[in-house]
């Protein structure tokens, strides 16, 4: 958008991740997604008179894992507080959260931008809290229905610094967090099911201006695509407001993905006095160095370390390494592929992160759901590397594999993709091409070497694409210059 060229966006994200525990953060009820309404809401989750919360050990461990993974200070003492407000999906009339003393303090994550450069984004804090239930807005005789299955599901709220400067960066940050929590196996990252949710604080300022503008909090931006669209919409709205001479009101806005717009949530505004105070039912959470060391020892290889290793070990570009380490499963697939092929890790990277990824993206599938196995892809890459097929032929093989064919060599045979590697036959074709283009041969020999591609093209055309391009190059060069 033209409007934006004089303006800079300032964005901070609040990401809520549901921790992948078996039971709730403060009760022994199950956390499974999709159960019948209110069948996983026990007396504690319902806020029955007399019940008390007891903190889940695993939720604490997961929060500490996250803290260590973003290089953050893990607070030896943290405190649970009550955030008081009335809402039907909040059974107790307060949410147990952390306010003044969160479990995870200041840290950072590195995001890799499209050009391969790395940007460090500050993490202000991450704190444990309980999720609310859901209001179902289908009409029950003019009423809403409340399902409290989700109430008291453990959440880790990760708050970033306002370090992000574009919607793209915000998406890259969100993807990095997404990858990270899945590496740690502390969240399934399923945004469609609400396991990972995002609110964005957005403000705009004229380029060169140091002061931050007034920010608006956009709720409910729960997919990578929506984050980008909602931020861009909101930024544009704010710029237009300012240009029209209006000031920005600090407020909470809801993103409506069907209309692609944000609108003010006045209901949230008036009830803003949350009356936080330390929850008297929960004592301070104290963790010691030994505990932290134990959690640290159990951490898996994290994306940043893996990315560095991929660059060093496989000679990948920063960008390729970042893409391939973006998810634990993709990185594992890559290492399987390289192991099977046994050489050319860069070519392996291309076939996985570009060719196969293209199919996956088109059908919105994860690598674990791929219709083409790493064994099949390895066989395909092997046939390219041994010269049996060309890169273009490889693409045709991949298409067939994706469509359900099983066997690489069979596909090559059936489609006649085998390259012409017989030197005699190739020479005959090349001779034929050169004989039919004497003028161009003259020009080439006269110094117009740019015509080389023309000859290659002609040869490929005559061979119906089956000529081995490497060989064609060699022979052509010899004949033209010899």
């Amino acid at each position, binding site marked *: 958008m033209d409007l934006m060229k004089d303006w800079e966006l300032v964005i901070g994200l609040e990401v809520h991740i549901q921790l992948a525990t078996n039971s709730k953060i403060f009760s022994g009820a199950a956390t499974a997604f999709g159960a019948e309404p209110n069948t996983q809401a026990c007396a504690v989750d319902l806020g*029955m*008179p*007399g019940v*008390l919360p*007891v903190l889940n050990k695993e939720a604490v461990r997961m929060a500490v894992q996250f803290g260590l993974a973003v290089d953050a200070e893990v607070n030896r003492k943290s405190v649970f507080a009550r955030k008081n407000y009335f809402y*039907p999906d909040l059974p*107790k009339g307060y949410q147990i959260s952390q306010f003044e003393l969160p479990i995870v303090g200041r840290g950072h994550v590195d995001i890799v931008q499209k050009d391969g450069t790395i940007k460090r984004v500050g993490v202000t804090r991450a704190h444990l809290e309980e999720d609310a239930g859901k209001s179902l807005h289908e009409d029950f005789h003019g009423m809403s229905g409340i399902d409290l299955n989700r109430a008291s599901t453990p959440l880790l709220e990760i708050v970033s610094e306002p370090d992000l400067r574009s919607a793209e960066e915000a998406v890259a940050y969100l993807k990095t967090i997404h990858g990270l929590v899945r590496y740690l196996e502390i969240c399934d990252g399923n945004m469609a099911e609400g396991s990972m949710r995002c609110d964005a604080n957005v403000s705009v300022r004229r380029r060169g201006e140091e002061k931050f503008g007034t920010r608006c909090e956009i709720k409910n931006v729960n997919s990578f695509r929506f984050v980008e669209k909602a931020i861009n919409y909101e930024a544009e709205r704010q710029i237009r407001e300012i240009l029209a001479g209006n000031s920005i009101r600090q407020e909470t806005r809801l993103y409506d993905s069907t209309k692609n717009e944000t609108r003010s949530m006045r209901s949230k505004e008036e009830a803003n*006095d949350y*009356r936080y*105070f330390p929850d008297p039912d929960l004592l301070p959470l104290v963790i010691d160095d030994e505990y932290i060391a134990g959690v640290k020892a159990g951490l898996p290889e994290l994306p940043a370390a893996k990315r560095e290793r991929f660059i060093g070990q496989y000679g990948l570009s920063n960008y390729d390494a970042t893409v391939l380490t973006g998810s634990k499963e993709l990185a594992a697939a890559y290492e399987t592929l390289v192991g099977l092929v046994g050489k050319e890790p860069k070519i392996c990277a291309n076939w996985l992160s570009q060719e196969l990824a293209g199919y996956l993206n088109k059908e919105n599938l994860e690598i674990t759901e791929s219709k083409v196995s790493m064994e099949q892809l390895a066989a395909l890459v092997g046939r390219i590397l041994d010269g049996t097929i060309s890169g273009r032929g490889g693409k045709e093989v991949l298409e067939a594999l994706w469509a359900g064919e099983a066997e690489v060599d069979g596909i090559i045979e059936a489609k006649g993709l085998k390259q012409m590697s017989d030197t005699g036959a190739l020479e005959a074709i090349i001779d034929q091409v050169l004989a039919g283009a004497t003028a161009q041969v003259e020009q080439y020999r006269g110094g117009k070497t740019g015509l080389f591609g023309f000859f290659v093209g002609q040869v490929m055309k005559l061979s119906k694409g089956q000529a081995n391009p490497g060989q064609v190059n060699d022979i052509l060069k010899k004949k033209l210059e010899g």
Partner: protein
Amino acid sequence: MIEKTIAELSAGLAAGEFSSRELTDAYLQRIATLDSKLNSFVTVTADAARAQADAADAARRAGNTSRLLGVPFAHKDIFCTAGVRTSCGSKMLDSFVAPYDATVVRKLKEAGLVTLGKTNMDEFAMGSSNETSYYGPVRNPWNLDTVPGGSSGGSAAAVAARLTPGATGTDTGGSIRQPAALVGITGLKPTYGRVSRYGMIAFASSLDQGGPMAQTAEDCALLLGAMAGFDERDSTSLDEPVPDYTAELNQPLKGLRIGLPKEYFGEGLDAGTAACVEAAIAEYKKLGAEVKEISLPNSGLSVPVYYIIAPAEASSNLSRYDGVRFGHRCENPKDLLDLYSRSRGEGFGAEVKRRILIGTYALSAGYYDAYYLKAQKIRRLIAEDFKRAFEEVDVILGPTSPSPAFRIGEKSDDPVSMYLNDIYTIAINLAGLPAMSLPCGFVNGLPVGLQLIGNYFAEGRLLNAAHQYQQVTDWHSRAPAL
């Protein structure tokens, strides 16, 4: 047999002098005859009690020798009892049949006690006179025009009138000790965390503690032994072994160091009450105790501190009563706000509303530091006063209440003068210490209570000191004529 203590009933049951069924029928008969004068029970569970008594008799025939087996008992209506209405003295919970047993209820059931019913109380335990109950005031059996104290006034009056040999109470600012004093029985508030709060409907979570009310210290020792202990459902319950509290009862008091806080004997203390307490001090000296004056310089601030902290916690604890999942719901709410405001406005009585409003105000933006935080700081000073005192003495002794029972209606229009009734009891809750009240005389035919305060987990010491006093006095065995 109705005059007997729990220890005596226990012995009688063991000796086969009477069965649990006979005993239970006798108490049920007495309740049916006399409680219309007192209004001490809100629910009598006669059928269930007889069934439990029959089961206890059968268990005894089968060889069960538990000391509390078959002894009738009553629960303050703040403790959740599965399948039995648990009203907390409020219209809000008038139809609330608890879906589970409080831990205390479960433990006492397991010990073999027979539950006669649920006793009346100040609404949500907020009161010092039992006049705030939705079910009407409880009357003091010594003088039916006076209050029995509160909030455990029903339990206190029922034990005093021998409608039950013992009952549970809860004490947030004096709610076991003050009514025990006003009706002439023995009541113990244990160390915070000694008795599980699970299923005990919360008033102020950092102050609430359940405890026994009975005729004698020996009975309290028996009951506490069955009530106390770690509960995995209450994070604030302490994982400390439960001693046999009856084992220490007969230790001689020679050398016991008793501290008399000068602040507890000054202005505001009724002369008759003071004389009774002085006489008790003389008894303790005869028993070999050493008495010295101590100072609790910040204790005078305990009432203001309490009337910030307790309402603040209560305002949040009582947010769950919103007319959605349980409890009173207004007719035809026009919207959510109407549902909340009217359900709560109709369901809560005036004193509960006052405290919710004060607590809401104390926590609200701009006032938190001046009220809530300030109160928490002075709370520490109050606790430190006790800490210093217990470096010099073993037990602190003083009056429980500044004066004997007052007339019904006398203070109900003046909350502040009502609050000052708890001036000697509140500091103990703020510090989390154990304390008890035992009868030490009469003024104008109304009982006077003596308060003994112990160090953390020194319940055994307190019970010992009280028991020894009750071996040389008979105030505890005097019963009102009804």
